């Protein structure tokens, strides 16, 4: 790794730590860094302890982990599908999760029940998309994107119908699908974190294979990559990570799409470096977005998706305009 990349990594890491500290200190009650450190050292007063350990810390960890997970999956799906507008939701995970959550809300499930329903339903959806895309022993990537789009559209129609028939739950469903960490608990985190972290590490171990697949599936096979196996593993791991992320944070758009792109512009296309860099930047970005979402209109929280899109969109456009390679593809 050269100097420039080391500087990028160090900067991103420092940024992440700063953003996390900022996120813990900001809110309806402002806490100084000293007070935060006191609580983390297990002293300090009980009110601050409750605020930090039960409210803010789980939230900061959730947004960082979900930001990381979505960015890693985005980077891999863009590489695997060789499609610059691929994101973690491209194969129908988000619509499946929304349907699961909608049904759970209608049936009056508790919070953890809703998370679990979203998780299971998104995996079922991915499985359907996968089964459609399978031709013999091979999976067609183009078919996968098309099938994902079609299945998503179909499921969205079902969700709309369910919402229409259950008007009283309309707001809850809408808020769930817009994403956010306002209802986060240690319990749902304990379920999601291992899946996201292990899934991301499994995917990361295939970075070099994805590098080769980027230059063409057939070419990769001739370089000794078992492309069909790699595709399956990345899809299974990526679906689990995304499903777990969505189950705790709802459908947070844009992170999994733009963070990998921004990082690719900054640090290059080699997934062995791009993926960990995207993980750090994604964690910092989503933690920052969540902090804005809950502090900008105190006491009202706004859905985090509004923040990710309104900050991420213009910044991404700025990079696109400034990037000299823009006419030659973003890979």
């Amino acid at each position, binding site marked *: 790794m050269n100097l420039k990349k080391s500087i990028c990594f160090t900067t991103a890491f420092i940024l992440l730590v700063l953003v996390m500290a900022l996120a813990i200190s900001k809110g309806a009650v402002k806490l100084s860094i000293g007070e935060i450190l006191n609580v983390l050292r297990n002293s300090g007063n009980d009110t601050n302890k409750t605020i930090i350990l039960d409210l803010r810390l789980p939230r900061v960890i959730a947004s960082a982990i979900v930001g990381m997970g979505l960015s890693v999956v985005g980077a891999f799906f863009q590489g695997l599908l060789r499609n610059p507008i691929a994101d973690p939701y491209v194969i129908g995970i988000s619509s499946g999760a929304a349907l699961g959550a909608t049904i759970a809300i209608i049936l009056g499930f508790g919070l953890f029940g809703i998370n679990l329903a979203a998780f299971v339903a998104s995996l079922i959806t991915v499985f359907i998309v996968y089964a459609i895309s399978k031709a013999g022993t091979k999976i067609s990537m183009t078919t996968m994107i098309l099938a994902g789009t079609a299945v998503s559209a179909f499921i969205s129609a079902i969700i709309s119908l369910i919402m229409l028939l259950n008007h009283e739950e309309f707001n809850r469903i809408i808020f769930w699908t817009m994403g956010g960490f306002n209802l986060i608990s240690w319990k749902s985190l304990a379920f999601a974190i291992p899946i996201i972290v292990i899934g991301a590490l499994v995917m990361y171990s295939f970075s070099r294979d994805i590098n080769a697949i980027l*230059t063409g599936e057939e070419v990769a096979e001739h370089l000794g990559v078992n492309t069909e196996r790699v595709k399956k593993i990345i899809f299974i791991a990526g679906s689990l990570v995304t499903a777990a992320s969505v189950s705790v944070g709802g459908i947070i758009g844009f992170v999994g799409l733009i963070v990998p792109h921004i990082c690719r512009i900054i640090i290059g296309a080699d997934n062995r470096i791009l993926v960990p860099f995207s993980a750090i930047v994604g964690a910092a970005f989503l933690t920052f977005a969540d902090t804005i979402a809950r502090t900008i209109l105190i006491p009202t929280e706004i859905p985090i998706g509004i923040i990710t899109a309104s900050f991420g969109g213009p910044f991404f456009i700025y990079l696109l305009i400034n990037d000299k390679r823009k006419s030659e593809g973003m890979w």
Partner: protein
Amino acid sequence: MSILKVENLHFSYGKKEILKGLSFSVDESTIVGIIGANGSGKTTLLKNISGYLKPASGNVFIEDRNIRDFSIKEKARYISYVPQDMEYGFNFTCFDIVMMGRMPFLKRFQWESKKDRDIVKKSMEMTNTWQFKDYKLSELSGGERQRVYIARALAQEPKILLMDEPISHLDIKYQIEILSFVKDLSTKGILVIAVLHDINLASQFCHEILIMKNGKLMDLGSPNKVITPESIKSAFSIDVELLENPNNNIPYVFAKIG
């Protein structure tokens, strides 16, 4: 010992039979040119030899070992492949691209060593692409890209190098340069099999010519033996006349027009 033996090879895409029972064997240190009309199955044959496509029946043996018994990674240590069309719209440097040729030799969590970097440098110098090492593929011309991909194939240190129309994007200078250089490789113990469109360049540079017709092997042998007006008429349905290159007595074909 024949490094490559093909035995009664059949292959179909769906219901369409492409290869209809080919058998032949070739030795190492040879350059074989495959010629034949469009759709005669040249590329399909290459991909069956590389193990990328699985034959419906028949076998391919590499050093007397059935290719079905090789893992994908093992195959890549024996055979490298330069495809006909290559993508280039990504943000890798040429050095990164060529380094991918070392993948078959690396374990999952192993980073490239100095030895790998040396091999990459050597491969790039051999193909005259070292000066592009920090360039993106998209910044190069078609011919330069072709040479980078050949460098990647060489970085695999293959025993068999398969090339699908390796010179079709090149101007005459690089056509000659690449073919001379590939011929050099073959003298160093590598078997090179190249699909070529130019019958005359194929004759000039290849030790053996393999003529395909309708998914079958029509003839295999030295250019002097297999390139005749009759064989070309049969394979391509055109009338040609033959001259001889005065330097090496290799046949030179030109079409009779009008």
